């Protein structure tokens, strides 16, 4: 169906190296998420795969064939855009049918495919409406429907949930994951939100400045980040980075401790700190503290913890969860 392989894919705009050279293997049926801060080249990489941009150099193999110089439509991929990019002057039905019409399918085939896609996506009642008359979530589903009917080798998603409100985003996340389980088609999903990456992906590709920082399963990236960037990017709230004496004690340049891997005590511990702000979320509490001699840190404590401004506390990292980094930000093996 859809195995995609990138070989030394390179993209320059003028003198600017947006993608200096990426190698990547995406297996058939995999849900791969490209994640990274804005401007890291993740969308550009997706557009290169889609064929909306020319590669400057390198190969893009879909099921073994190099498509780097093929027109987008010839690659057998479909794409869901951030803005949904629905045709505003066409009904939902015609939006979904457009690709099939362009491919010259017969009316009956088109109707059958559109109806079945509409059924999967709960759009049957809306087929005669225009996109303007739909809610954000419904538009999103139309965009997905348009992608499904073409029976592509792979789906490409470009930040599809960023225009939705928080509650709807969680819903659509589940829907897309469900869709993947049902269709078992390769999906490449671009997002800047590491939560989406963690929850949806089979495989996460972390990008920064056009470079692949690390590729792996979500929990692998969480537990064994290859470098300081990945360690800081994956996980929320962000990992605390500590230098100086405490790092020297662990025989490295800098250590990283996740907020959830710090034990809180009022009696004693490794690091003394003053609480600045306590955010009580109910199930858990985020403590923003000023550690003596180390600067600001974030701690994730239980929901019931009764601490407030200016309380003195002590923090102790779980020893086997400490990440050690050298002066280049690379992870040192062995704790």
């Amino acid at each position, binding site marked *: 169906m859809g195995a995609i392989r990138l070989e030394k894919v390179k993209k320059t705009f003028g003198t600017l190296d947006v993608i200096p050279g990426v190698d990547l293997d995406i297996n058939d049926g995999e849900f791969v998420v490209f994640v990274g801060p804005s401007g890291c080249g993740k969308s550009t990489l997706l557009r290169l795969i889609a064929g909306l*941009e*020319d590669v400057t150099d390198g190969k893009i193999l879909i099921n073994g064939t190099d498509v780097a110089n093929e027109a987008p439509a010839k690659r057998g991929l479909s794409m869901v855009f951030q803005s949904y990019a629905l045709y505003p002057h066409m009904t939902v039905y015609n939006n979904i049918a457009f690709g099939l019409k362009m491919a010259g399918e017969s009316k009956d085939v088109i109707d059958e495919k559109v109806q079945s896609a509409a059924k999967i996506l709960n759009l049957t009642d809306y087929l005669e409406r225009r996109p303007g008359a739909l809610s954000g979530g419904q538009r999103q589903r139309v965009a997905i429907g348009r992608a499904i009917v073409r029976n592509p080798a792979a789906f490409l998603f470009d930040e599809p949930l960023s225009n939705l409100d928080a509650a709807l985003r969680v819903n659509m996340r589940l829907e897309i994951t469900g869709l993947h389980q049902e269709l078992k088609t390769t999906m490449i999903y671009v997002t800047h939100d590491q939560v989406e990456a963690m929850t949806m992906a089979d495989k996460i590709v972390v990008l920064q400045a056009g470079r692949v920082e690390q590729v792996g399963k979500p929990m692998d990236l969480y537990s064994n980040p290859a470098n300081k960037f990945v360690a800081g990017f994956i996980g929320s709230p962000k990992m605390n980075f500590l230098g100086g004496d405490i790092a020297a004690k662990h025989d490295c340049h800098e250590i990283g401790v996740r907020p959830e891997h710090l034990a809180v005590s009022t009696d004693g511990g490794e690091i003394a700190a003053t609480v600045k702000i306590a955010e009580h979320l109910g199930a858990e509490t985020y403590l923003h503290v000023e550690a003596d001699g180390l600067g600001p840190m974030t701690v994730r404590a239980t929901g019931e913890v009764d601490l407030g401004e200016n309380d003195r506390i002590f923090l102790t990292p779980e020893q086997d969860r400490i990440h050690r980094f050298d002066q280049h930000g690379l992870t040192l093996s062995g704790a």
Partner: protein
Amino acid sequence: MSTRASTLTGRIMSAPSIIVLFLWMAVPLGMTIYFSFLRYNLLSPGMEEWIGTLNYEFFLTDPAFFASLANTLLLVGSVLIITVVGGILLGLMLDQPIFGRGILRLLVIAPFFIMPTVNALVWKNLLMDPVSGMFAWIASLFGLPAIDWFTNAPLTSIIIMVSWQWLPFAVLILLTALQSLDRDQKEAAQMDGAGPVSIFFYITLPHLSRAITVVVLIETIFLLTVFAEIFVTTGGGPGLATTNIAFLVYTQALLQFDVGGASAGGIVAVVLANIVAIFLIRLIGKNLDN
């Protein structure tokens, strides 16, 4: 959206327009520059000869040039002041709730769509005629003597006509800009204790500054070349009283057939227009980046 194929298609598809415009502007302009260095009169064909900058010397030292330059500046300046001030006032007026505002707005902008020759003749005859015109009758109601507009105040008459035509343009643009003013800003200022006058000077006017600049620049470009209104009413007279640069070039070229002199005048007009155009193009260019 930049693949090699689409960039190429883009080039091919924008080429025709760019080429025809280039031919339309650059070629005649080059010819005008060339003619401006020749002794070239249509009445004595075959006598053309290179005379260097003599045409420019004649044109620029001709009293008619100074008169027409002064007229041009007076015309442009007066119309700008009238239309911008009037445009702001009318814009503010039309931004208020008024009974039948939509229709009122149509009436106010109507003059802009009147063709210049109609505008000129309606004003000259129906309104400004010293015997049977509307203004003469209104003056007589107050026991005043009728003004013979085109004899005694010819340039003023042209200014009034042209202002009437361009006022709606200023109103349209300033009103559009006014309507894009954030209501919250006005309300915040009211909360801060600003009265209507302070709101106008501290909030509204700064917000309008960009639109005012656009009005001034675009009107200037068109007003520098006012032609039809003069052509059908005064013919540039009496004497040179209403001759502007555009009209002067026209008389030299098509009435005196002095191609060389007219070309030199044309180039002078181009230079004057370009001084304004540079500012306008910069302004619009900046806008393109956003």
